[in-house]
């Protein structure tokens, strides 16, 4: 539901059903609400059966990449005699995204259940949940929930009396956006700088501590107990015409809307309904100018493009952007697009791990060029220079951080070129002071 707002009739409430209900946080509260039934059922199935069920559900990664979850698990070798690891990516740091935070704050046991099922499915006895360092409250709530789960036999050496071992360790990040990239995250758990690794090998073959590993997002794992309990057919039934995009998605909406929050929708819902019906549309007297639909790393849509978008993996691509994490940033006509694109570039420059030249130099120089445009010192060739830089930052590095920096710059110049030119032609007062 649209926490912190009441549920909207057009939402499909599955993961967010207990948002705002503090009693659901405790083990007993969770059990009273039907919790841990999914894990108990899963423990009676074989790992192969679980993987097949999740494959059949069509569940895709909710962190941004949209990779089929069951397929990812099936890549982890079987009976290879090595320890396997399940890693939950709770490093939610993508600007515009704040859904995993609410899952951990309100339904910690739902996440524990999902992690435990996934761990069992890939033959892992030890799972790590990597929580970003700034999430102090979710950390406290998750810590308490893990402790409770151990006390009630939902974790440990004999999970619910089945003789199966599943241990969960929470691992705290320390302020690095890049650790949301799965291989950087693995390095961070290993006690290293969070530099992404070259793939292949993929984590399924050589991941954490060099062992077969599956890395899944919080929201993805939170959906798993529901799928196991209610069946793949129920999940594929949550679909509005596109069989490649099934189930529900939490959409975080922020920026210039009347009711920012998390709304849970069936994939395939028109973006317009989320933006106007659920989030209430623009503030009174204002008009929406731009929408970044999937977290700051995806191309910017104009209001007209956003209005025509079907909100699922394929629909947002067809509109010229990506579903990403479904962190939707809404900007109205008061927004200085050049300034906000500079802020995004600055974000990526700050967060670059600096191992690839194209990213280290590209993000920093893009920021500086945008800053000089804003300071009224832009040169006529600056927009072409930015686009040329962006081209060198796309598809040429170990991870996609520099691509993510290029996305808002390229789409911003393409769609809001007039705003950039107003600074270049000195038709607009400088927004920054030249130093």
């Amino acid at each position, binding site marked *: 539901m649209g926490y912190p707002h009441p549920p909207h009739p057009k939402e499909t409430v599955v993961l967010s059903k207990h948002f705002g209900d503090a009693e659901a946080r405790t083990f007993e509260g969770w059990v009273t609400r039907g919790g841990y039934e999914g894990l108990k059922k899963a423990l009676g199935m074989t790992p192969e059966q679980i993987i097949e069920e999740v494959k059949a559900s069509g569940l895709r990664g909710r962190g941004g990449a949209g990779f089929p979850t069951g397929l990812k698990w099936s890549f982890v070798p079987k009976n290879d005699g090595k320890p396997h690891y399940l890693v939950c990516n709770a490093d*939610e*740091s*993508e*600007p*515009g*995204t*704040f859904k*995993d*935070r609410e899952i951990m704050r309100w339904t910690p046991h739902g996440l524990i259940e999902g992690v435990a099922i996934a761990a069992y499915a890939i033959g892992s006895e*030890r799972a790590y949940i990597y929580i970003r*360092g*700034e*999430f*102090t409250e979710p950390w406290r709530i998750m810590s308490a929930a893990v402790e409770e789960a151990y006390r009630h036999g939902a974790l440990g050496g004999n999970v619910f009396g089945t003789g199966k071992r599943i*241990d969960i*360790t929470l*691992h*705290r*990040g*320390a*302020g*690095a*956006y890049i650790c949301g990239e799965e291989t950087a995250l693995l390095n*961070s*758990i*290993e*006690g*290293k*700088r*969070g530099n992404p690794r070259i793939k292949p090998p993929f984590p399924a073959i050589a991941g954490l*501590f060099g062992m077969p590993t599956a890395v899944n997002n919080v929201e993805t794992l939170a959906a798993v107990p529901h799928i196991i309990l209610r069946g793949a057919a129920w999940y594929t039934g949550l679909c509005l015409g596109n069989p490649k995009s099934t189930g529900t998605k939490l959409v*975080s*909406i*922020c*920026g210039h809307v009347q009711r*920012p*929050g*998390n709304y849970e929708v069936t994939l395939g819902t028109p973006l317009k309904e989320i933006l106007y019906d659920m989030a209430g549309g623009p503030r009174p007297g204002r008009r929406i100018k731009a929408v970044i639909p999937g977290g*700051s790393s995806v191309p910017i849509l104009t209001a007209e493009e956003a209005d025509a978008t079907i909100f699922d993996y394929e629909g947002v691509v067809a509109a010229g952007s990506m579903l990403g994490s479904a*962190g939707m*940033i809404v*900007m109205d006509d*008061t927004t200085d697009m050049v300034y*906000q694109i*500079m*802020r*995004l570039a600055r*974000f990526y420059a*700050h967060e670059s791990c600096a191992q690839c030249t194209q990213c280290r130099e590209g993000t920093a120089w893009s920021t*500086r060029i*945008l*800053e*000089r445009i*804003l*300071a009224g*010192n832009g040169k006529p060739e600056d927009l072409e220079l930015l686009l040329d830089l962006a081209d060198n930052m796309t598809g040429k590095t170990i991870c996609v951080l520099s691509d993510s920096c290029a996305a808002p710059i390229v789409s911003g110049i393409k769609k809001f070129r007039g705003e950039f030119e107003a600074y270049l032609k000195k038709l607009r007062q400088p927004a*920054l*002071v*030249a*130093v």
Partner: protein
Amino acid sequence: MSDTVGAPRGPQRGASAHGGHGTEADAAYQPVFVGETRAKLEKLFEQYPTKQACLLPALWMVQEQRGWISERAIGEVAEVLGLTPAYVKGVVTFYTMYHTHPVGRHFIQVCTTSPCNICGAEDVVKAFLQHTGCGELGATSADGRFTVIEVECLGACGFATPVLIDDDFHESVTPEGVPALLQRYK
């Protein structure tokens, strides 16, 4: 491009007027990993196949006790985990939440990334700088009470502007709300 550098920015996080890493006299250093803290770390060793994996947790333990991570503390962590001090320092400086210099008694982090920026986050920063007496980003107030910094996305964009004060997460902070909020931190 030195003639066209744009936005004025405060000192980098953890920087000091003197530059370099914070130091303290050898004689004054009391080890962190003794007694209960040592036991806590030993317990963590059981949850990872390598001691190195306990590096981030160990650094957190140091910062919780001492407020920052000094060169001497880095040496101690290295010794406890069987790593070199240079390696540990490389990791400490990668992660922005570890302080390599002492900071104010209360550490204030204000999100100013785009989603909060368009909702007025920069005015919230100004209010904190004014009411804490810090004056500029990264500086500590004369009474040692506060340090204010801007941070990139705190992951609570629907509750602009989120502010992290020590371990307390505050949502929907406005410039007007700043004085009352600061009253809670002595």
